[in-house]
């Protein structure tokens, strides 16, 4: 009887941890989101669904730590400035996640 109680308690703790982890990290919002992994994710996906590739590439980055702190400039303007782009032809994004502790979002701009 006592073992059953402990198992139930462990289950509750696990679910609380999962709920908090998923809720706090929150994944990412974008028009196209491939299936993400809670433990490890490293994906590239489009933000604009068509357009020319262009000759230059620029990135801007936002970093999130443990779902508690998030900072950075992930705007298209910053990505274009980093790549010396005046006309952005296409925009992608990259998302990296390690156990919800370290998450990195990048806006990648292509253009001329």
């Amino acid at each position, binding site marked *: 009887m006592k073992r059953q*109680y402990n198992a*139930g*308690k462990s*289950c*509750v703790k696990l*679910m*609380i941890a*999962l*709920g*908090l982890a*998923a*809720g*706090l*990290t*929150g*994944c*990412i*919002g*974008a*028009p196209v*989101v491939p*299936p*993400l992994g*809670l433990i490890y994710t490293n994906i590239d996906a489009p*933000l*604009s*669904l*068509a*357009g*020319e590739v262009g000759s230059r590439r620029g990135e*801007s980055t*936002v970093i*999130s*730590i*443990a*779902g*508690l*702190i*998030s*900072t*950075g400039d*992930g*705007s*298209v*303007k*910053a990505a*274009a400035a980093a790549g010396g782009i*005046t*006309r*952005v*032809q*296409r*925009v992608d*994004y990259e998302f990296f*996640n390690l156990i919800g502790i370290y*998450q990195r*979002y990048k*806006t990648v*701009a292509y*253009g001329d």
Partner: protein
Amino acid sequence: MRGLIALALLAGLPIVTGCASVTMRPDSGYRAVSKLRTAVLPPPGLVYTKHKAPLVFVPRQQGLRSGVLGARAASQEREFEPITFGSKMGTATSSQLGLPPLPFPGLTMGLDLFGWGDASQDAAAKSAGIRQITHADYQFEVYLAIFRRVTVEVYGD
């Protein structure tokens, strides 16, 4: 105890499965926290967030017309207007004050008490005298999970 387990399942599973679901937005957990609706939302932090992301992400299609014939004509043209930033930048801000959404962001939804400000693109454009908006980014700020601020930045001429 069974009630607690059921509660934990109800709280945790929809958020966990939402990461790979089509019907539920992958970021539904945090959207419930921040009440922020944007096309692109990098992972925010509950305690401190100050980041920028694109508000408008798709280069506008030229010659887009309504109706079947218009759609066909638009698909044949396949011309996309590149994003340019113009010479001016205007901003507009909206703020929100509420209670932190703990312990389960997806379950409790937080509690928003006050919201004020005009973060429309129109207000941002007027603040800098922009007549033609060519692109828009936004800045999202969170302080101690209770104060949130969205600043829309528009570019144009």
